[in-house]
């Protein structure tokens, strides 16, 4: 079987697979058995980059991944994210402890600040006692090898994070042909990362909910190839079903970067529909902002959102901005 190409993770000397597995969708798999099978086939198919997050499915996504990676932990590059959303570094370290337990490991390859979404998140991150201190400490203590941040809202917020001067190893952002036309991370953030030797991690190659596929605007192959052809270390995509995984593995194994003219043609094809953000709800609405983030910033939550329903079901939920954590 042909392998998925490996790419450099920034200037670190580490290589990761050009296609990465998204943690949120793994938690959306129909059952645990399917999730186990998805991870197994992904590893067999050449995926080495695994994404996750403390707040995905109230820990289920990390729990399942931890179980599925048993015995394979050292063959792969494991990332998870911390969900302080402006809150203290001490909370971040508690979350790290939980993530390591769930993922059944003593260290992460990459630990990122999740969902930098609000205009004041960079200030809250870098402040005294903020999450920046937790990233530093975790790295020093050997609990995480590399650190970074993620967000889907606005290139200006990403730039503000970079301008804090914190030594990030990676930055994650939505990258797809619609993004290229609207509040563009590709145009505004990606070149800054290249300049600084920071690893760029692409996400939402299909715009998060794959609407352009459902509406027959672009094919999955076009969109995945577009994202993977950018100067990124990996493209993280969600795969909650085996047939989606198999389809994406095939695209990744056969991957050849698109020529510049084809990239331009794809951007041009979406230009009109991209111009008002109709396929990028993560930039223009709260739809993709998790309840932890909303509550920490005093934004309303949406009772119809899956994450909120899951949160309300939690017996231990205190109704406070975040659930109590074991110390």
């Amino acid at each position, binding site marked *: 079987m042909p392998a998925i190409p490996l790419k450099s993770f920034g200037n670190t000397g580490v290589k990761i697979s050009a296609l990465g597995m998204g943690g949120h969708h793994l938690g959306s798999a129909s059952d645990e058995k399917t999730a186990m099978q998805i991870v197994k086939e992904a590893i067999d198919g050449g995926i080495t980059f695994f994404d996750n997050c403390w707040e995905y499915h109230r820990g289920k996504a990390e729990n399942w991944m931890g179980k599925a990676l048993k015995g394979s932990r050292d063959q792969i590059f494991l990332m998870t994210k911390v969900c302080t959303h402006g809150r203290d570094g001490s909370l971040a370290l508690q979350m790290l402890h939980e993530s390591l337990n769930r993922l059944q490991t003593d260290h992460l390859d990459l630990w990122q600040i999740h969902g930098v979404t609000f205009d004041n998140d960079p200030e809250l991150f870098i402040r005294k006692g903020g999450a920046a201190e937790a990233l530093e400490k975790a790295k020093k203590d050997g609990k995480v090898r590399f650190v970074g941040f993620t967000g889907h809202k606005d290139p200006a917020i990403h730039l503000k994070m970079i301008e804090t001067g914190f030594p990030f190893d990676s930055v994650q952002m939505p990258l797809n042909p619609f993004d290229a036309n609207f509040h563009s991370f590709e145009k505004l953030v990606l070149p800054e990362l290249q300049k600084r030797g920071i690893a760029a991690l692409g996400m939402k190659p299909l715009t998060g909910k794959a609407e352009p596929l459902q509406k027959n605007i672009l094919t999955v192959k076009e969109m995945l190839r577009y994202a993977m052809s950018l100067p990124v270390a990996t493209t993280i995509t969600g795969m909650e079903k085996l047939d989606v995984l198999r389809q994406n593995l095939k695209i990744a194994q056969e991957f050849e970067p698109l020529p510049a003219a084809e990239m331009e043609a794809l951007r041009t094809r979406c230009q009109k529909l991209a111009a008002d953000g109709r396929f990028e709800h993560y930039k*223009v609405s709260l739809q993709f902002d998790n309840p932890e983030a909303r509550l920490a910033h005093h*934004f309303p939550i949406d009772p119809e959102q899956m994450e909120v329903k899951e949160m309300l079901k939690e017996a231990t939920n205190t109704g406070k901005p975040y659930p109590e954590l074991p110390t």
Partner: protein
Amino acid sequence: MKPSSLETTDATGLGRRKFLKGAALAGAATIGAATAAVARVEGVEKQEAVKGAPIPQKELGNTGVKVSALGLGGFHLGVPRDAKETDQIVGEALDAGVNFFDNAWEYHKGESEMRLGAALKGKRDEVILMTKVCTHGRGRNVAMGMLEDSLRRLQTDHLDVWQIHEVVYFNDPDLIFAPGGAAEALAEAKKQGKVRWIGFTGHKDPAIHLKMLESGFPFDTVQMPLNCCDGTFRSFEKQVLPVALQRGIAVLGMKSLGGSGELVTSGTITPAEGLRYAMSLPVATTISGIDSLDVLHQNLEIARGFQPMKEDEMEALREKVRSVAADGRYEKFKTTKFYDGDVGREQHGYPSAKALPL
């Protein structure tokens, strides 16, 4: 334009009306806090408001007419249970010296315009009447059809101000100024004498307003959110207001309390602080949504004999709210989809307010 196509888009306005019930409830909760707050302000700050003193009037840009520093918002006129209460609100506002009346073709599927038209019967010539056209990217012909609807509902043969409503999508300026776009309707209606002055409104992002102004189109008015949080976050006050003033365009402020009173219900400021801040800016008027006589009385008290805040008072208020302003939590019109109406969403291929509330 076919009336049937208008009906279709009109029907989608229903979603917003239902959806904004939540906002109306939030407004109701405001009243109690608001009344108490006014009492507090009067006691502590010895506010200059004098019972029976007139509401100050200000120049409407370069138009030569004067408008009351407090304007009556049209959306909230469709909120009271019956037209009788709306009648009373409009009547008392007129008696107190409010002469600027706002509305929009899409508010409550036309109900807001119809109620205002009925309430202004016989008084039409005493007021500056504004309504807005809801093309949301569609062209000149749709706009001209909506103008006829609005004139009929408002029971008048002309508008004083006609504005493009809810310029909130980043490609709206391109669509408005495209050949056959809504800008052509504004120019034509003005030429025909059906409207005296033209402008646009929006609540989303100063960058979109600036793109509209950069077109060079001869707008007479521009409407924008102005409140004590705005100065800290994606600021219309800092970025758009000076550009409009420099060109002699009249600025109409709105959302002085956060759109649905969020700044007050959260305990951040009093209604008097919020309204006085907005009215102290170099604007022609501050449009305030008033859906009950209680709120009207409260706001009239604040507007009567109004004296602008001094710059250091304004700075102190901005400073007081700075930390909650920084993430836009009380300016949800900028940060969420909550304030974007269904007619516009449909035109821009977005899910309805029900499917994507925030």
